[in-house]
């Protein structure tokens, strides 16, 4: 008998008793908010995780990105394949494209990355990436030390985790990001950035 059969047979002998229906009476969302209030909540929750939050509109994004990259001193920036070209129109850094043949070590030399997102969740201060063309492979938002993520509000903003799951496609690789990489492993002192980007900047686009 294979282990699979053995395990399944054991389960069938063991699993007994009544079934339980799953109560779904928990809330779909905690509280009612206007889109502006949702954006404020997202910003506040992200800031609490020590992410930096900026707001601008389509006209201002190129200058804002230029400024953020300059302040950081980044000479190189990773760019996903379908990032709107005008976003980086004003920025100086050399654009680096993530090719299948790029090694992690090559990407490690890049200083910043700019991406869009699939959606953001106000109540938890989370941005979710689904590897869409304006976000790129998972590794590009992981290896550089500086990640700038653009969230279109209100279109990409939801209030709650249940609302987020409804909109996500589980067959795509999903990365949920709530603030920069952090650890509390040493005497519970929070330290930002162990392995992932140590600086996360989020731009709320459209929220002026």
């Amino acid at each position, binding site marked *: 008998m294979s*282990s*699979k059969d*053995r*395990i*399944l*047979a*054991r*389960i*069938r002998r*063991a*699993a*007994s*008793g009544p*079934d*339980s*229906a*799953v*109560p*779904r*009476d*928990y*809330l779909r969302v*905690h509280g009612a908010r206007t889109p502006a209030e949702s954006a404020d909540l997202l910003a506040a929750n992200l800031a609490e*995780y020590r992410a930096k939050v900026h707001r601008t509109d389509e006209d201002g994004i190129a200058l804002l990105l230029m400024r953020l990259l300059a302040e950081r001193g980044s000479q190189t920036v990773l760019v996903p394949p379908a990032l709107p070209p005008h976003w980086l129109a004003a920025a100086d850094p050399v654009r680096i494209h993530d090719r*299948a043949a790029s*090694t*992690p*070590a090559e990407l*490690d030399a890049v200083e910043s990355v700019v991406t869009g997102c699939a959606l953001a*969740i106000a109540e938890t201060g989370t941005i979710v990436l689904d*590897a869409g063309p304006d976000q790129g*492979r*998972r*590794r590009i938002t*992981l290896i550089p030390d500086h990640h700038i993520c653009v969230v279109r509000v209100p279109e990409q903003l939801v209030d709650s*985790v*249940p609302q987020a*799951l409804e909109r996500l496609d*589980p*067959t*795509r*690789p*999903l*990365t*949920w*990001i*709530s603030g*920069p*990489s*952090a*650890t*509390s*492993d*040493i*005497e*519970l002192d929070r*330290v930002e950035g*162990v*392995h*992932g980007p140590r600086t996360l900047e989020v731009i709320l686009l459209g929220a002026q």
Partner: protein
Amino acid sequence: MTGTYLGMPAFPAFPEAAGEAVRDEVLRANLRHATHTIRDKRARAVAELEDWDRLRAAGKAIKDHTLRHLDCYLLQLEESVTAAGGTVHWAADADEANRIVTDLVRATGEREVVKVKSMATQEIGLNEALEAAGIAAYETDLAELIVQLGHDRPSHILVPAIHRNRGEIRDIFRSEMGSWGRPAPEGLGDDPRELAEAARLHLREKFLRAEVAVSGANFMVAETGTMVVFESEGNGRMCLTLPETLISVVGIEKVVPTFRDLEVFLQTLPRSSTAERMNPYTTMWTGTAAGDGPSAFHLVLLDNGRTDTLADETGRQALRCIRCSACLNVCPVYERAGGHAYGSVYPGPIGAILSPQLRGTGSEIDATLPYASTLCGACYEVCPVAIDIPEVLVHLRERVAQGGPVTREGIRVTLRPAHGHTAERAAMRAARLLLDRPGALRAGERLLARARRLAPRRLPGPGRAWTDTRALPAIPAESFRDWWTRERGTSQ
């Protein structure tokens, strides 16, 4: 009967191990600071959600329903993972799981793997098995790195190096990093920032060249084949996305039916665990994705005593555990004894009920674990999937003291009662440990009405061995401490 291996060889019974820990002042100070900090933060994070009780009830029901139909959901999971490009393996016990993983690593031709913290692989002693096969396994979670470099064992589910302070960590990094890879920077100090930076540099070289990674998973979705890993540091993302081959070893109880079910645990796990609204990173992947992440994905489904636990109607609720560690942080016994005293990778209240079920109560440590509690009930109150730990503890004490039917490796057997003096000794020593140092216990100690209901004619807890031979006056409304003081005539 071979007994289920839980990653640690024979350890002294809980009272001895705990006694040692209690005498270690540094350890106790570290633990006290840590558990109190997390527990206070957690209470605030939970209070923020007005529907917490409903989320908790839903989490419990999702897990119970899944366990009731575990065969169906595992088969569905296998189908979805396979359809998404992954390969599923079934492992009945630790040896088989280790063999499967070792063979998979060998087939890649690699001699090293990076690992993201996984209790399942600790449980089966995978690192040791790989080492025996000439394969180096590098732990990449900061705390696990501290533990591994310190030739130590984890002592907490969430913060495995909770027993180490910054000075100790600096010393470990200075003396050990060099022999595992990039050495610690010259003149490394004990500031947590500096220490984290040293770990970043040390591990990055490993991440960037790693071809094979080993992980666990917090959840597996039957409907879609989606695997879910919660983490904070990014070491998880490194392991899950950079290597060519990813091998995940996951307990069969980690499956949930639908993608939607995650909406419950994504809300309850981070708040119960790190007291955050959300942990910094959660990765979800479904099989393999073209051009993004590992091109080979293997899922090893692990039984290792879980089906035996499922066969016990009272004890099976332990399989609902989502490893948040909230119960550790509120436990007065854990706070004093530390995680090592529990003699398995599962410390604290959950360890006290899980290990003796996964391994059986044959060894001395497993026979004493059900006594490693005051039955104060705090663990039940905080548990996000409402595991009634005190109920299971009382049930397991009964099993140790009286014997009875249990399932071991799928076979129904009848345990003989422990020799009267064994159970009595265990109870006595556990009680002495707890009662000799009353400070931390005073606040929370009470015998639950629930526990009394379950054993109306006998005292639950360390008193049981005596009440078998003495008449116990009516159901005691008093605490165990009061009873003890009266019965044994000792004063605090």
